[in-house]
């Protein structure tokens, strides 16, 4: 017997949207398990716009956007349980939870993993130097500034130039922190225009084509060493380092349990319905891949909620037969979903999502057993999502596994 119909792990935009959609579809017992004291996810500590355009047709700050998502879910009848940590996700939808009153188990007919992403910390980036205080990810800085009203430093450097790095600048300004520099390894800023103008407007020196070589300091950060494209070494005095971006799915539950993880995304392996290797488990939002906006995750969550409702009604095709989709080119970071179920049902994710690792100008091709089955021109940068229609690949592959790669233009 199940305690609930659907348990959703993670109460961010994707999880809350999935929960609301499940309720709208008539599913009765829907719970969101949120380990923080409040649901809402990452937007709770992004104290600045733009949020909510897609969902509420209004320009909101992160916290008010998060509050709206929570209240819509509650209005829809979703049971949101905060301070509830899922410790283990076991086969068949059995969850082991820690709650404020103790350890308990929860059995769900379906589980949706919506645990989002986090930035790569210093350790996994292998950054050289002593282990000093004052090195944080943007997420930690945002929580300190917006949730606990604190600041860990006053003159940091910001490493990276994805969209989140610009959120870091806004967060700093709110807290009276003056970033002294933004460092980007590539020749251009990763986030799209007009972000590139922003550091200059905010008075932050921009060092593109520069690599963070080492963090200096005794007990606290005292400076960083950079190396530019010509191999020139320089030193910047600062009292903190914000390591921004390089997102990675928070997929520990899948990784440490029985669920298969894709090394390319770092998230669970799913089919076009977001269904994992144990078909009682689904995934949605940024745990699928790094990284999309809150708005995108919210839409994705809503669709996943509908698919799971269909699955509960016995209306999704079986997981097999399926083909595997993978990337076979260092310029392609990943492809999601990793499995395409071959079925008359054309529902599920309309598109395979791809990301490139660097600027690419060539042809994206799909191959089965070394034979090209599909291709199209591709010009994209690392900040852009690349979409390939799922049904085009499914119908061209003739039941064989698909590898995606980039071919240089032939003429």
């Amino acid at each position: 017997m199940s305690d609930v119909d659907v348990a959703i792990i993670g109460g961010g935009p994707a999880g809350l949207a999935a929960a609301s959609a499940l309720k709208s579809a008539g599913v009765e017992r829907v719970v969101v398990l949120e380990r923080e004291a409040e649901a809402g996810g990452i937007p709770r500590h992004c104290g600045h716009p733009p949020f909510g355009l897609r969902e509420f047709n209004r320009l909101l700050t992160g916290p008010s956007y998060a509050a709206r998502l929570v209240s819509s879910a509650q209005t829809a009848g979703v049971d949101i349980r905060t301070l509830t940590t899922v410790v283990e996700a076991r086969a068949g939808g059995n969850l082991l939870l820690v709650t404020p009153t103790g350890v308990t188990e929860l059995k769900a007919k379906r589980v949706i993993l919506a645990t989002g992403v986090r930035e790569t910390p210093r350790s996994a980036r292998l950054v050289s130097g002593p282990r000093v205080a004052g090195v944080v990810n943007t997420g930690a800085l945002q929580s300190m500034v917006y949730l606990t009203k604190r600041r860990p430093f006053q003159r940091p450097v910001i490493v990276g130039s994805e969209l989140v790095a610009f959120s870091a600048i806004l967060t700093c300004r709110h807290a009276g922190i003056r970033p002294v520099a933004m460092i980007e390894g590539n020749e251009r800023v990763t986030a799209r225009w007009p972000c590139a103008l922003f550091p200059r407007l905010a008075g932050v020196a921009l060092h593109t084509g520069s690599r963070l070589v080492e963090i200096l300091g005794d007990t606290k950060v005292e400076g960083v060493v950079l190396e530019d494209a010509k191999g020139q070494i320089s030193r910047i005095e600062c009292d903190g380092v914000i390591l921004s971006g390089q997102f990675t799915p928070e997929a520990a539950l899948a990784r440490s349990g029985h669920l298969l993880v894709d090394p390319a995304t770092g998230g669970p392996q799913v089919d076009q319905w977001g269904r994992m290797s144990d078909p009682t488990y689904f995934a949605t939002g940024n745990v699928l891949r790094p990284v999309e906006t809150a708005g995108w995750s919210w839409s994705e969550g809503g669709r996943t909620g509908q698919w799971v409702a269909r699955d509960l009604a016995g209306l999704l095709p079986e997981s097999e037969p399926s083909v595997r989709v993978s990337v076979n080119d260092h310029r392609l970071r990943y492809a999601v979903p990793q499995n395409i179920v071959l079925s008359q049902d054309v529902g599920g994710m309309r598109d395979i999502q791809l990301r490139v690792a660097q600027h690419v100008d060539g042809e994206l091709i799909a191959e089965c057993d070394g034979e090209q089955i599909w291709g199209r021109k591709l010009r994209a940068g690392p900040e852009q999502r690349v979409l390939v229609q799922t049904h085009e690949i499914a119908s061209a592959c003739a039941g064989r596994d698909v590898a995606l790669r980039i071919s240089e233009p032939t003429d």
Partner: protein
Amino acid sequence: MDQSLFDVVVVGAGVVGCAVARRFTLEGARIAVLEKSTDILDGASKANSAILHTGFDAPEGSLELACIRDGYAEYQTIRDSLGLVQDNAGAYVVAWTQDELRNLESIKAKAHLNGVTDVELVDAETLRAREPNLSRNALGAVHVPGESLIDPWSAPHVYLRQAMENGAKVFTSCEVTDGGFDGAEWRVVTTNGTLRTRHVINCAGLYGDTVNRALLGETHFEVKPRKGQFVVFDKAASGLVSAIILPVPSETTKGIVVFRTVFGNLAVGPTAEEQDSRTDASTDEETLKALIADGINKVPALKDMPVTATYAGLRPASEQKEYRISATSEQNWITVGGIRSTGLSGALGIARHVYGLYENMGASHDKLPDPVIPKANMLSEAGLRDWKQDGAGEVVCHCELVTRREIEAALHGPLPARSLAGLKRQTRATMGRCQGFYCSARLAELTDGCFVSAMAEKLPHE
């Protein structure tokens, strides 16, 4: 500071100082422990491979071997009462080349000579059956069943707590700067004031020679810091090996080890890098990459495992291989120096040996008849962690499942954490996959006013 006369002042609260303080307290001596850092275990003891060694490969007939053997034996007897963990993982000394393969027989012979008689040779096929994720390049191994995994911080922490709860005084942020002996009594000058004591035991680790020079006026050894870097892989990797994977050792180092931890991680390290600095525990990208590559060579499935943490430790080696333990009887002084790499394994044995030297100086006490026995922090995955118990309240660090109750206990307990590093060693907060991405803000709030150097300051305009 306390102006009464102590029997013994222990300089340094690393693993050796903690074990010495415990032994002397249990024997009935009145002890003060002086630690220059804000928290104990902040020098050489903060970073090691967390293995309780049997001594199978220690130099024959050495004091080090005797201390490891005694330390190992005592750990077995006090483990359950103090609530200490021991994962009997066992170890394989793996041969990766034909030369190394030829060496295995002599490693086994040495182990037997050292009294570790359960050591056996294992052929490639058996090794593969027992450790299926090990690279096919493994040619054979020596199996050392007694090598174990322990908690490198909770153990010394409870040694010192047992000393404290039976009367020892501990002073942190208290650096010894000077001192003098008048033939009967030492005057030990610290940054916090002066203490009086009959004897001094120098357990200052990386600063052993400096403390000797400052107070004795001379030193019989020089500390030669040797850095070791480590890479810790995601917890999912811990299932890849069951035993500790040791290399065939060289003259200077045990070499790079692949080992699980009782916290549920898998780590690779340490390197052995000679350096002059006693404080610089930097990691460097190139070395970490080489360690990762070494790990993947030995356990190919590590290729898809993310890195959770990296760290470096400094071993207080000296210009000789042997421990540099000596008594200066005419000055009531004992130096416990040069504990180059086996401090965690040897500490309890070293403490007994040092108490013997102390008695040889003519000192004696009456053993405590009924000592208080505290319980160690339980941070092992396999143990009864706090989150598994009712009323733990909030889980603050989600990656390592550290509860608010544990954090508050560490901040307000008998050896209060006064730095994030100290809190980490007592609770594991921020030591997991996200390294503080999720919980730093909450921790900054919970530790407000507790740390010598705050994690973050309050916003001026809020």
